[in-house]
C-alpha cells in the first residue's frame, strides 16, 4: 500500500496518523508541505526515523527543492520525481492520501 502525506507535521497530525497506520512493507510518500516531515533535526525526525526500518519512506524531490530544503533531507529517505510518484502508485496500490 502507498500512503501520501501532503501536510507539514507541525501543521496537522497527518504524518503521525499515517505512520501509526502504515504496515510493514508499506510505502509512505511525502509531498507538498508534507516534505517537511522528511527533514533532519526537527521535532518530528525521531518519529520518522523510528518507522524507517519497516516502512519505506520517500519524498518528492521537486517539493523539497521548491522549499530550499533538499540538503536537509534525512538520510535513508528515497527521493523521487513525478515519474517515480506514478511508479510508486502503480506498484504499491491502493493509495491512501493523508490530508
Amino acid at each position, binding site marked *: 500500500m502507498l500512503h501520501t502525506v*501532503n*501536510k*507539514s507535521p*507541525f*501543521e496537522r497530525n497527518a504524518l503521525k496518523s499515517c505512520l501509526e497506520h502504515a504496515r510493514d512493507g508499506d510505502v509512505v510518500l511525502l509531498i*507538498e*508541505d*508534507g516534505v*517537511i516531515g522528511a*527533514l*533532519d*533535526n*526537527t*521535532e518530528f*525526525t525521531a518519529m520518522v526515523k523510528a518507522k524507517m526500518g519497516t516502512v519505506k519512506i520517500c519524498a518528492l*524531490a*521537486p*517539493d523539497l*527543492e*521548491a*522549499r*530550499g*530544503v*533538499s540538503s*536537509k533531507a534525512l538520510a535513508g529517505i528515497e527521493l523521487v*520525481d513525478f515519474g517515480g510518484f506514478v511508479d510508486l502508485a502503480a506498484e504499491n496500490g491502493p493509495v491512501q492520501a493523508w490530508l
Partner: protein
Amino acid sequence: MSDEMMDEGGVVKKFMYVNRKAPHGTIYALESLEVVLIAAAFDQDVSLVFVDDGVYQLMKEQKTDGIEVKNFSPTYRALEMYDIEKLYVEKESLDARGLTTDDLLVPVEVMSAAEMADLMAQQDVVLSF
C-alpha cells in the same frame, strides 16, 4: 480610508503581518507578501513576523521550477527597498525545525515567543496569514 488617515501628514499606525504557514503548499505566504507590498505604499509602520512553519518562507535556495509555481522568495530581499526593514523570526520556531539564521535569505531579528508576544501587544493592527 478613514478621515483620520486623510489628514495632512497622515496618521502612522503599527501594522504587523504574522506569517505561520510553509510556502508553496498553500497560498497564504504569497498572499501575505502581496498585501505587505500594497500596504507599503501607505507609509505605515510595518513589521513582519515569521513563526511556526512561517520560518520556511525565508529559506535560501528555493527552486520552484519543478513544481511550476512562482518563486516569490527573492521578493523578501526586496522589502528593504519599500522601507520594510522590521523582520522578526521566533527562536522557538527555528529551534523546533533545526534551523538557524544561516538558513535564511534575509537578515532578521530573532526573538523569543515572549518577546514576540510583547511586540504583538504593541500593534494597532495585526493581520494573520
